[in-house]
């Protein structure tokens, strides 16, 4: 259950390593029970930010507040956080039970209370049968669950996940991801989750913070980030996007309708948000285009484009097409359609097809063409 009270607040966090600006005035907050994902490519500062929240690296400026308390000068061992490391960082000399109970022992819980808590958490992550085993005797997925249980056992104010699934295979990753999300919802703990996998971020988060080069590019709910990317970086990083330079040639702000000239052709755009400049970037997703049949084309009037297919990739549930206005020169666009959908199975490289993009499917990016 998400509460309005902020469990974590990061304000203007900045950190510099010699000439490298790792974090530059980063701000975000997480409400109680919320799962916030820090998403970005390698080197964008997301892990550094997580380590700063945990207290492993001091900030040059800015502040971190947990449950309203400023964490400046408070060492990691006295912060109300617990981290799940990318490498799991299990204590190899301790059994699963001792690993899970490590933090409880530090908190000086009584023996019976500690045993009860360890058994309870182990049951939640389905490790009750492995309590006496050493980490080396467990599979990767089980080790990940021990790391999760160890962090959960201390019932921290904020749980920190540093790319916890990156060492797992694709199937196990999906399974553990679902387990983490379901435990997080059931236990109601606040979590900050670092990943470079946009699918993971979209699937798990209440709030996504997209970062690049130490700066927050955009933050919002997963659907907002996907449907309304702020700039070319976010549009391209989150999913696949067709980004075009567009020139606004006519506008009807009252109805939110704009006519723009693009390399694809003239387009009508329906947008609540007006373009930031007459020359602006316009984005549409590969699944926004619909392949139309010959007998339909006569009845359609707006945003109809004839394109030549340059390549076709069958992806099982989807067919991924690359198409352009000419045979090989000029810009090309990605179009994805269901494998069994109309037209997808009929088109092959070299064929000409007609697509339709609904006006509301185009999005203006908050970035002018310079």
């Amino acid at each position, binding site marked *: 259950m998400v509460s309005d009270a902020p469990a974590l607040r990061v304000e203007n966090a900045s950190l510099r390593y010699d000439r490298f600006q790792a974090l530059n005035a980063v701000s975000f907050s997480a409400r109680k029970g919320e799962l916030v994902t820090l998403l970005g490519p390698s080197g964008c500062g997301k892990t550094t930010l997580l380590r700063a929240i*945990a207290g*492993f690296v001091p900030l040059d400026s800015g502040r971190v507040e947990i449950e309203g308390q400023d964490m400046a000068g408070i*060492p*990691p*061992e*006295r*912060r109300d*956080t*617990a*981290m799940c*490391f*990318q*490498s799991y*960082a*299990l*204590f*190899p*000399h301790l059994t699963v039970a001792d690993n899970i109970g*490590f*933090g409880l*022992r*530090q*908190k000086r819980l009584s023996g019976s209370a500690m045993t009860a808590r360890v058994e309870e958490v182990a049951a939640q992550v389905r490790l009750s049968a492995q309590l006496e085993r050493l980490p080396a005797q467990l599979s990767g997925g089980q080790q990940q669950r021990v790391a999760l249980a*160890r*962090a959960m056992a*201390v019932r921290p104010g904020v749980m920190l996940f540093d790319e916890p699934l990156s060492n797992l295979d694709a199937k196990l990753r999906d399974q553990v991801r679902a387990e983490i999300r379901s435990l997080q919802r059931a236990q109601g703990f606040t979590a900050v989750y670092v990943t470079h996998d946009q699918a993971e971020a979209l699937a798990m988060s209440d709030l996504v913070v997209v970062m690049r080069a130490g700066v927050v590019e955009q933050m919002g709910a997963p659907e907002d980030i996907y449907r309304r990317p702020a700039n070319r970086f976010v549009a391209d990083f989150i999913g696949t996007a067709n980004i075009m330079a567009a020139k606004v040639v006519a506008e009807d702000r009252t109805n939110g309708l704009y006519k723009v000239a693009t390399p694809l052709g003239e387009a009508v755009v329906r947008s609540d948000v007006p373009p930031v400049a007459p020359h602006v970037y316009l984005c549409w997703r590969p699944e926004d285009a619909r392949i139309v049949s010959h007998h339909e084309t006569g009845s359609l009037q707006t945003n109809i484009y004839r394109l030549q297919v340059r390549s076709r990739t069958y992806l099982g549930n989807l067919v991924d097409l690359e198409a352009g206005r000419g045979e090989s020169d000029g810009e090309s666009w990605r179009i994805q359609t269901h494998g069994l959908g109309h037209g997808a199975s009929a088109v092959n490289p070299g064929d000409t097809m007609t697509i339709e993009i609904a006006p509301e499917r185009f999005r203006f990016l908050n970035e002018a063409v310079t």
Partner: protein
Amino acid sequence: MSSRRTLAPYLLLIPGLAPIIVLMTLVIGMAVSQSVTWTDVSGKVSLSLEAWRVTFESDQFWRAFLYSARIGTLGAILSVAFAYPVALWLRRPFAGSDLVSALIKAPILVHGLVAAFLYVNFVSFQGFLNVALVGLGLAARPIRMQNDPYAIGVVVLQVWKNMPLAFLILSGSVRAISDDVLNAARDLGAGTFGRLRRVVLPLTLRSLQAALIIIFIGAAGDYTFQAVAGPTSLNSMAQFMVRMETDNGLQGVSLAAVVAVMLMGLSLCGSILLAGLMQFLVKRAGR
């Protein structure tokens, strides 16, 4: 096919293991057989425990035994105690850490005999230390430190010579502990001593035991430092063994062999005790 596969690794071990097993068996076998073969002045040889009886009735033997046990234990514990914090300190590289590390290892390059003579010269009545103490007004007259009766000089030399060895063994295992593991402990509430007791010490226990055993065996069997810088009223086991062999004519070989067997026994028992003690202390600290 499967039995061949099982056998193959053992066969591959033979070139390495065989010389060790053969030499160990020869050394132990020869020492034990010589210790029970009493040779008298007429050259008559008979199976006898006479050498064991004579040795065990000798006060000098027991003093040498306890002395070597003491030097071995002190040398091993102090070397490890000095090397361990340095290994922890140098765990993460910093400006100048390579130089510090190289300086710590430098004593390995100095031969024990040379080190012992240098030490004796340094602490002798007219040596640098006494001259400095008198010159600085810290002592009214030179102090007698050479061949001191408490064997402080021998212990100092043992620590000086063996600390680099302990450092080499320990630094490898200390560096093998990942930052993430230490950060995880910290994140779960363990302070500096908590991390040391519950993570670092248990993860380096095997290296601690190895360092203690290697140094104990070397220090307990020391001849060089004892002969040059040790107390003149006491013998180490190695020194006593040589004395037995040279001072007792034909019986000397058997008497020396008894001391040799006892020295090997001391090495074995001392190593087991020290390793066990370390395990007990580390486990107790980790609770």
